[in-house]
């Protein structure tokens, strides 16, 4: 691919991004938590549950990109403070989305990793802004984007001076409508051929179906992904957003017990 001066494999073999006690590109990193921060109680209870189940980081949205302007838009600064508190309680690093270039420096004061959502993948002014901070960026693939377009967006961030970009495959739009999106698992080995940046999978938004999250998580490990981003809610029935696709802490724990041995097994596989 042309013009990938910094993202292509020519420059580095594997980017390692250390956050807290784990490193993307070295360990299998599991990020779990609610779709959005709804209250202190909900966030901290979920944080404790995912920590106990073995998650490495907490996700949770304080700013929500919603299809409808009338849907819950997130708690904003209040949500960031709740995430900070959840981090103090559990020690889990925080991954949260930023929507507005004016918010970038502020979100970076609270979060350990800033997420760029699928709808903002090609929001170039936002990409330039997160390229200026000193925190890793989790860049989700645009739902209509090719790998080349996606990597060019990573290049935007790298070219501003931020070397720590984590890619996240979250499904693309196809004619198939049984699932919410189509999870493009082939992106994992393809990305590994094209770039040194780590890649994680979001099995929640890509499938939109609870029953498929487990199998696709296992498939992600087999495909060689560097981690997972999974929605967990301490009481999914009460969730203000995406209630029907969040795992309960119990289901998440079961999944974690299957994931770790599979990853260990894959590590033993001869190249």
């Amino acid at each position, binding site marked *: 691919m042309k013009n990938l001066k910094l993202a292509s494999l020519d420059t580095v073999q594997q980017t390692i991004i250390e956050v807290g006690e784990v490193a993307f590109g070295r360990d299998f990193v599991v990020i779990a938590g609610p779709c959005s921060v709804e209250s202190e109680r909900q966030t901290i209870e979920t944080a404790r549950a995912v920590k106990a189940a073995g998650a490495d980081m907490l996700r949770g949205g304080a700013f929500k990109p919603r299809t409808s302007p009338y849907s819950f838009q997130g708690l904003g600064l209040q949500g960031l403070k709740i995430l900070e508190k959840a981090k103090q309680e559990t020690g889990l690093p925080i991954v949260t989305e930023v929507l507005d270039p004016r918010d970038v420096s502020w979100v970076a*004061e609270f979060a350990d990793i800033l997420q760029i959502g699928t709808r903002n993948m090609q929001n170039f002014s936002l990409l330039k802004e997160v390229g200026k901070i000193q925190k890793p960026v989790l860049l989700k693939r645009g739902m209509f984007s090719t790998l080349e377009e996606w990597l060019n967006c990573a290049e935007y961030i790298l070219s501003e001076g931020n070397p720590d970009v984590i890619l996240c495959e979250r499904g693309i739009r196809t004619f198939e409508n049984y699932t919410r999106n189509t999870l493009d698992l082939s992106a994992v080995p393809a990305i590994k051929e094209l770039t040194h940046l780590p890649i994680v999978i979001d099995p929640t938004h890509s499938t939109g179906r609870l029953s498929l999250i487990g199998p696709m998580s296992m498939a992600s490990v087999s495909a060689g992904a560097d981690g997972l981003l999974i929605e967990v809610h301490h009481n999914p029935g009460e969730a203000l957003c995406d209630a029907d696709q969040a795992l309960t802490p119990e289901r998440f724990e079961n999944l974690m017990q299957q994931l770790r041995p599979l990853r260990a097994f894959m590590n033993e596989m001869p190249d």
Partner: protein
Amino acid sequence: MKIDEIRSKIDKIDRELLVLLQERMGLALRSKKFKTNINDPAREKDLLARAEKLNLDLVESSFTRQLLETIIQESKRLQEEDRMLVAFQGEHGAYGEVASRKLVPAGAYIPCLEFVDVFRGVEEGYLDLGVVPVENSLEGAVTQVNDLLTTTDLNVTGEIKVLVNHSLLATRGTDYREIRMVYSHPQALAQCRSFLLRNNLEPHPFYDTAGAAKMLAREHPKAAAAIASSLCAELYDLDVIKEGIEDGASNSTRFLLLSREPYAGKGDKTSIIFAVPHEAGKLFDVLRLFAEAEINLTRIASMPLRSDPGNYSFFLDFEGSRQDHTIAQVMDEVQKLTIGLKCLGSYPADPMA
């Protein structure tokens, strides 16, 4: 004016009324030190009569009387409570007040303009206790305070280490994205320099951290915030935008509690000040006494003598009480080797300090 605007003005006035009442109650408590009896009917009558003479058409005299009587009653109740008057330097919400609240829990905390006001107030008996900073982990000794310690007759009866935890504060409803100017003491601004840079904020020096918070609450400047303790958020009704904004490892300040009386118990830490003759090895001779008696020194600092340029005062803090037999013996020896040995006191050590 729209209803929202009117309401916000009313809120602001209510807040100021309460802050003024807090100040008034503090003064009432201080006045007690000059009176033999809390009840002073002549003064009360005079106060009520003067207020009634004010011709405010919306604040009727019957209401004024009722209001002032309630205030007087409350201040008499406070005077009877026998709270300790604890003086600190700075405005309400200063780190000195944070230290005072920890050292003396249910006190009345009295702000003083200068460190010398804290010392004089306690020495002369208008205030019960004083709380002053002696050293900061980043900036070193607070020279003004150390200088005052060399001349005072007050005793040190306690110590506490306070973590300087700076918060970014703004008036309620301020959109953090619109903040451009940040007011605070130059030292606090310097301690948060990279936070300010990261968020593209302009530092504006102010005389005091808590003073900046107070100014924000009173004047509501646009696009402005202050760096101060989170206690200030409670005292001035401000929003905490972000806690812990200092760069790198948090710094701490050690405060001493001052009293006219020495500490009633034994204590496990002692502070002394002395000077030595300008001869080779004199300071070493003193320090050797402590080394040989295996007394652990926790602080040693020197300060030029204002009265005698070229000569120095030495400040020594060590573990143990002057009531301990070994320490008493060492002190007798130290007395012989030094000029103007002064023991500030033995007091309970703060395990964190």
